[in-house]
């Protein structure tokens, strides 16, 4: 490690903040869509999922970066998979032990973090060619970028689909149902997750014109 560079130099800080907006793995790179559709019905599992993915991307990036000079290129994919799988199993076990209900709600999707393209993509594109600390930051950043979108989508889906936020009946408390309002059943269905995501992408691109492909 270059001892002179401060831990959070502007360059490193960009690794952390870039994936939140300009290089968002979900809305710009369009990775990790499947789980974004599956777990965003409620806010709580989405938050847990977001944290799990941040942990897995950050630590697998760190581990792979530490090993990057010893991994033979021809078997690097399988090595990466082993590392990711180990991380995912740890996260899964922790969830089962300390947040059993959420873990049941997330069911297979925690296990399926292994197949989340963002993680493999970051290992291939970043961790294999960078030092551990930047790789770790990159992992946190990308996990957070993914989690941020997940939480935004889940916020709207839970609020409009079930009328609650984190299980708290917001719309009932402000008395919206008395005016004849009915929960939107379509928000609970997977297509609406895709459409909500599409709207986020639309908004982002109309504000950031250089993201639009020619």
């Amino acid at each position, binding site marked *: 490690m270059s001892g002179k560079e401060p831990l959070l130099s502007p360059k490193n800080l960009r690794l952390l903040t870039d994936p939140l907006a300009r290089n968002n793995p979900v809305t710009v790179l369009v990775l990790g869509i499947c789980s974004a559709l599956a777990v965003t019905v409620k806010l709580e599992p989405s938050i847990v999922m977001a944290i799990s993915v941040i942990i897995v991307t950050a630590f697998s990036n760190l581990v792979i970066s530490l090993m990057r000079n010893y991994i033979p290129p021809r078997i690097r994919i399988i090595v990466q998979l082993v590392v990711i799988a180990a991380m995912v199993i740890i996260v899964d076990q922790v969830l089962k032990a300390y947040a059993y209900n959420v873990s049941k709600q997330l069911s297979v999707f925690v296990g399926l973090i292994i197949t989340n393209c963002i993680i493999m993509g970051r290992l291939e594109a970043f961790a294999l060619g960078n030092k551990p600390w930047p790789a770790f930051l990159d992992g946190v950043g990308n996990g957070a970028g993914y989690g941020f979108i997940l939480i935004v989508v889940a916020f709207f889906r839970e609020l409009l689909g079930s009328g609650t936020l984190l299980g708290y009946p917001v719309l009932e408390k402000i008395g919206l149902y008395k005016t004849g*309002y*009915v929960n*939107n*059943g*379509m*928000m609970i269905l997977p297509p609406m997750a895709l*459409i909500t995501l*599409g*709207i986020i992408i*639309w908004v982002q691109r109309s504000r950031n014109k250089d993201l639009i492909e020619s």
Partner: protein
Amino acid sequence: MKGLRNYLDKIKPNFEKGGKLEKFHSLFDAVETLLYVPDKVTTSGSHIRDAIDMKRTMIIVVMAMVPALLFGIWNAGNFHFQSLGILQEKTFWQVFGYGLLKVLPIIIVSYVTGLTIEIIFAQIRHHDVPEGFFVTGMLIPLVMPVDVPLWMVSVSTVFAVIIGVEVFGGAGMNILNPALTARAFLFFAYPSEMSGDKVWVAGLKGGEGIVDGFSGETIMGYAAGGKLEQMPYSVSDMFFGFIPGSIGETSTLAILIGAIILIYTGVGSWKIIASVFAGGAIMGLLLNLFAVNEYMALPFWQHLIIGGFAFGAVFMATDPVSAAQTEKGKWIYGFLIGFLAILIRVLNPAYPEGVMLAILLMNVFAPLIDHYVVEANIKKRLKRLKTLKA
């Protein structure tokens, strides 16, 4: 009238380029061309040049819907008073008036919501207000149950115009039929307002003073529930439309009058209409052949006059934007709509009516059909060229 024209001419420069109200040009243009025949003609694209412009075309479609609309308005009153058992005491105008009070708000809400969004997008994107919503705004009320809450009409119109049309680049670029998008949204978002036996007759949900034994169940409901023999409606009821259902869909006769207007003026494709009916009839025949229950044994021609089949075939499938564009493609597109509609209707118990889903599905496939029709044509001509050369 002269005064209005003069007034428009007087304020027109304000909306031209450089005028102080330039921002609102699209709004001015919409009002002016609605009132008067516009003085500009289409200059780009491969359009056939004709005296008729988009607005007149759209108005013909709206006119074709008028019979179905008028019947729907009367039928709304008819079933409301029938459910209360006081139909005999009411005059025709009382029945029609009641229906008008129920239907008119839906039409107004649909137009106001849709046009507001269209105008906002026209302002943002600096183009004229497109004409497409003339038709969509009228189609949406016609496919709604009469008792639908107005805010739901508004929400589904917003969804249809933004997600169904504007994200693809505006009217003319949409993949799906916007009116059906609105209906599909309502169907999946608020199923309790769009299905069951209570929503099709005005006032039935409140349930006050309803005559014993009256049921607002549609024919589709009877059929899906396996109680066809209890159905109180005759075949002529189905054809003339004395049955509960969405506002505009019940009377096959009124829809056929609309179809004649569309075909005579050349606005709607007769190939699509004919092939939807053909597809439905063939699927119905197939089901008749392998009938294992009463619904499958329902005579195939009756399928064509119940539910939204005729309405979908005449007004929804023929939408020139979302339908197949090639002539051969239109046959395939229409045939598959009819075929799938009856298939979904009879064999999938979750969806008592399949026309909406069949049309939306085929909307998605229409570009693919066109692609293969064009490819086949190219291949055919290449072959001809080769034999000529040889």
